[in-house]
């Protein structure tokens, strides 16, 4: 005979008592106009595409319509179920709840609860999607709000958060601000909640967290650890970014500057333009001209550390000075020098 887990039994009784309260589970019924309108729009677009002879577009729109109709159908079924006098199955018996809790306790690494706050949570294993570590997630359900839809009665808490580099409130491709974008799992999750099937609910949410939908994440995994280019601000993933050899800042392919001498990568702020040849060099590959104090490259500097511009000027100046002097024919004397 299986041992009774008293801790879980007490929890099951508390949950069952709360869910059995009068008026619990009788949320207002609203028709799903938010699902109807997209279907109506798609039908109109399909008709227009066919009038214009755009068969490929019509075909693609038909696929979208099929998906939208599926959503509408699910919403209508859910409303129909809620409209029944007693739209709930035996999920709310303490026995069923207890069995669910016992299975959850075996299935997940951690199961925690707070009866006073009506909160029950399980923690998944560490989730890794396409090589990106996201850490374990705690699925926290407030059973007192089991039938609420806005806001949802549960949240997803990152236990070892590794959020997207660009948005720190996105801890998972489909979780933002601790709210899960349920997608394909929406109807099943909502139905499990309404029927008090806690094991199914937590399993469905966990399986959604374990799956990556490339077509519509909040942040794509390919850009999860993306950085911003320090020059233009564009998002770049690791494979398409470079580090400035001088300051270490991240730069994109477009903003990458190569030193003409050492051919290393630098950001715009760490590059210098040679005052003589006007080519681009890194700071380390330039030297200050001893005469004019401008930075020039090694190729434009002579042995006396004068740039080509300054190297030429002194010969001309010497010639000018020589022309202006009077030479004393006998012995030494003084002559006025030009200023």
């Amino acid at each position, binding site marked *: 005979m299986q041992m009774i887990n008293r801790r879980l039994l007490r929890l099951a009784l508390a949950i069952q008592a709360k869910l059995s309260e009068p008026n619990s589970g009788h949320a207002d019924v609203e028709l799903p106009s938010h699902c109807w309108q997209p279907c109506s729009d798609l039908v109109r677009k399909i008709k227009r595409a066919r009038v214009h002879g755009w068969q490929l577009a019509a075909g693609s729109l038909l696929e979208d319509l099929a998906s939208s109709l599926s959503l509408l159908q699910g919403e209508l*079924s859910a409303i129909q179920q809620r409209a029944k006098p007693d739209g709930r199955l035996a999920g709310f018996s303490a026995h069923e709840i207890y*069995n669910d809790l016992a299975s959850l306790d075996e299935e997940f690494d951690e199961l925690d609860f707070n009866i006073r706050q009506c909160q029950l949570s399980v923690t998944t294993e560490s989730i890794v999607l396409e090589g990106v570590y996201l850490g374990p997630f705690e699925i926290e359900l407030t059973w007192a709000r089991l039938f609420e839809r806005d806001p949802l009665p549960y949240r997803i808490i990152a236990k070892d958060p590794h959020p997207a580099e660009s948005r720190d409130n996105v801890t998972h491709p489909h979780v933002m601000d601790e709210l899960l974008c349920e997608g394909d799992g929406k109807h*099943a999750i909502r139905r499990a909640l309404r029927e008090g099937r806690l094991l*199914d609910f937590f399993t469905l949410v966990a399986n959604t967290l374990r*799956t990556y*939908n490339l*077509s519509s994440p909040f942040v794509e995994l390919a850009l999860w650890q993306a950085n911003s280019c320090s020059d233009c601000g564009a998002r770049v993933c690791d494979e398409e970014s470079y580090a400035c050899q001088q300051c270490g800042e991240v730069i994109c392919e477009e903003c990458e500057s190569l030193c003409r001498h050492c051919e290393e990568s630098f950001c715009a702020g760490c590059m210098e333009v040679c005052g003589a040849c006007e080519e681009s060099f890194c700071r380390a590959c330039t030297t200050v001209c001893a005469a004019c104090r401008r930075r020039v490259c090694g190729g434009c500097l002579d042995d006396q550390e004068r740039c080509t511009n300054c190297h030429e000027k002194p010969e001309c100046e010497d010639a000018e000075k020589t022309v202006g002097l009077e030479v004393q024919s006998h012995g030494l004397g003084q002559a006025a020098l030009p200023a």
Partner: protein
Amino acid sequence: MRILFINNDGGGFADYIDVPPGTNVEWLFAERLQGAKPENYLIRVNRQPAARDQLLAEGDRVSMTPTKIEGATPGQRPCPVS
């Protein structure tokens, strides 16, 4: 015989159904989730993982839950609350 069948795929129906005596898990899966692949589902009987040839009994609780569930919906913008 009557069993509780929970389909957590799509609409997530949960209801009592009648199945012939001698029905096993594999037959029920093929009959209820036509075209689906069993390896993509977590199939439980009375909350325990079940073998394909496990025979069902009166009052059994059978659930079939997809292991891969895509968050957000193709063609729609992702949103935390719909």
